[in-house]
């Protein structure tokens, strides 16, 4: 009879105690795996979201704040930069030769769904979905944005042209999560709210022309409106031009009273009064980001900053998220060690009542090392059994939470999302089990056979 079967019979004999100790191990391992998987998913997610372009150009301030507000729609956006800065990247501008794609983004508005949920509104161009990719498919091809059936991208509306203040300007595209949670569909109209808090005045209505297929990025949780429409909304003139506007645009003031529903009467915002919150820049060459970084960040009298999002995300992960994860892992390791000690206590406490069985096995020819190994195998079986249960528990919980997390954040948590670090757990548990099983195993090794057999009389 193999040793593992003898050990398993011993476990069965103490079913309740064995189950409880294995369960405590399972819980410890489940928490540990949850930390590992959630962290790795979060890192992957953060890195994927920041892919598809080389630089984010935005107002001066915290680089991390620029990345968080632009890529993940988290926190306050930085102070905007003039539209003219965006023009440096296009149509023969100063940086146009280095630039493959430049996508402007205007942040600062929000959309309050009927259920009260708040989503960021991003004024942008169709290029965001046409020319920028997000991450890569398993086969290495770039992931492109796609629209759910019946939907399409925003239309290109060139500044100050007729289409820029017609229907095309007032079109919107909704991320998959935002659409699912707010119930928005193609053809619906939304009124963005001025400001991020959802408490400002309501802007003109935008018609939804497309709903994005899920991307697993922060864009799933946002609403995108045509940037030309954004510039037609109240309060979106370049900071400091309000007085100019008040003095020089009487017709615009008149329009203020009626703009709430009739956006067709808006006057276009002159280019010199426009601002962008940030610009996503995809460079033509590998050298481009370095050249642009130097030109933008170190140029004379610079008013903007260029940030490599991946670098900032890595810095965030290494500087803040990493240590927190390490702390959580230390805590979970302690939980697993406590569970392992409970296995030690359970087996050790049973040794006195099992000395008789051990003596019988010795009388049948089992060597001291054989009975020691049987106890060690028992400890390993309990630890591994608990560990495997913990793996199933963790992935089951992740699977159960997945739809909720995906709906709330756009982050996809597959229940089969494994991390290589989980594989390390198996030998680690065997080592741990061997360590905690050693004490009771030595006790088995030292069993006085004649005495134990005499005691059974």
């Amino acid at each position, binding site marked *: *009879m193999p040793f593992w*079967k*003898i050990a398993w*019979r*011993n476990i*069965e*004999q103490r079913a309740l105690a064995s189950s409880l100790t294995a369960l405590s191990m399972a819980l410890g391992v489940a928490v540990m795996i949850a930390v590992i998987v959630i962290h790795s998913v979060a890192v992957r997610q953060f890195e994927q979201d920041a892919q598809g372009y080389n630089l984010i150009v935005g107002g001066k301030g915290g680089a991390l704040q620029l990345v968080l507000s632009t890529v993940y729609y988290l926190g306050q956006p930085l102070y905007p930069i003039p539209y003219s800065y965006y023009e440096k990247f296009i149509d023969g501008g100063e940086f146009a030769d280095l630039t493959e794609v430049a996508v402007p983004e205007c942040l600062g508005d929000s959309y309050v769904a009927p259920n009260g949920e708040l989503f960021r509104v991003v004024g942008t161009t169709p290029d965001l979905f046409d020319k920028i990719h997000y991450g890569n498919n398993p086969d290495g091809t770039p992931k492109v944005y796609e629209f759910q059936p019946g939907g399409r991208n925003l239309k290109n509306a060139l500044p100050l042209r007729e289409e820029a203040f017609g229907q095309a300007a007032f079109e919107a595209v909704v991320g998959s999560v935002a659409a699912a949670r707010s119930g928005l569909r193609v053809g619906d109209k939304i009124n963005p709210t001025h400001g991020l808090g959802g408490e400002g005045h309501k802007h003109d209505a935008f018609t939804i022309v497309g709903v994005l297929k899920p991307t697993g990025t922060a864009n799933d949780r946002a609403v995108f409106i045509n940037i030309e429409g954004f510039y037609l909304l109240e309060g979106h003139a370049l900071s400091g031009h309000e007085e100019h506007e008040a003095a020089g645009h009487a017709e615009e003031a008149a329009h203020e009273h009626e703009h709430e529903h009739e956006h067709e009467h808006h006057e276009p915002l002159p280019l010199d009064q426009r601002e962008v919150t940030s610009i996503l820049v995809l460079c033509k060459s590998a050298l481009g980001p370095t050249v642009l970084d130097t030109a933008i960040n170190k140029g004379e009298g610079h008013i903007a900053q260029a940030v490599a999002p991946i670098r900032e995300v890595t810095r965030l992960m290494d500087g803040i998220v990493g240590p927190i994860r390490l702390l959580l892992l230390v805590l979970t390791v302690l939980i697993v060690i406590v569970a392992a000690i409970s296995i030690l206590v359970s087996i050790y406490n049973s040794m006195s009542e099992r000395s*008789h*069985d051990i003596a*019988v*096995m*010795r*009388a*049948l*020819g*089992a*060597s*001291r*090392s*054989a009975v020691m190994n049987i106890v060690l195998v028992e400890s390993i079986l309990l630890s591994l059994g608990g560990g495997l249960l913990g793996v199933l528990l963790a992935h089951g919980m992740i699977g159960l939470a997945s739809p909720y997390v995906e709906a709330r954040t756009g982050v996809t948590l597959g229940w089969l999302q494994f991390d290589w670090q989980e594989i390390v757990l198996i030998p680690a548990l065997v080592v741990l089990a061997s360590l905690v099983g050693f004490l009771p195993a030595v006790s088995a090794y030292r069993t006085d*056979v*004649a005495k134990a*057999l*005499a005691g*059974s*009389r």
Partner: protein
Amino acid sequence: MLLVENVKKSYREPDGSNLAILDIPRLAVDAGEQVVIRGRSGGGKTTLLNAIAGLTMVDAGRIALNGTDVTRIPEVGRDRFRARHIGFVFQTFNLLAGFSALENVMLGMTFTGQPRDSKRAVGLLERVGLGHRLSHKPAALSVGEQQRVAVARALVNRPVLLLADEPTANIDPMHQQQVIDLLREVCRDENVAMLLVTHADEVSNQFERVEHLENLNRVAA
């Protein structure tokens, strides 16, 4: 086959003095022979069996089984030797509660270092009338059935010597005879020598050779 010569064993008392248990000048058992050892309780019968099995080390003397001096074999080798050549039937059966009848018998094969022969285990259980109880655990077996499992376990490795320590002490008179008959019959069939320790007249009276410990052991005299 078995030769016990000048074997001495004593235990150290808590006060530091030595308590002599065994002093046996000679005991010889031939192959296939069935011998009963009688003696009063505490006379060293179990110590003698443990010494022969190599479970208790003697202070002096020689215990040879088929020419191999058990006292000279290192512990690991002694365990293996015991597994292969000596069968044990205990007073309290000593079946492992968590194991089925078949598993208890198979357990006897586990430590021999030889391939396990489940057919042999099943055959022996059928031989002792438990072919229909293979998967039953000890708690589901009667006292007599438990002892029969113990007999099958003791013989499964085809030992040359069976040591039986008061094998009928915990059994009612009706089953006592069945167990004795079974032990004698199986040992005869398998040509296994048997050294049976008992204090019961009705058991010892059935054997041709009965040794009184008082005559064997100078300490008990």
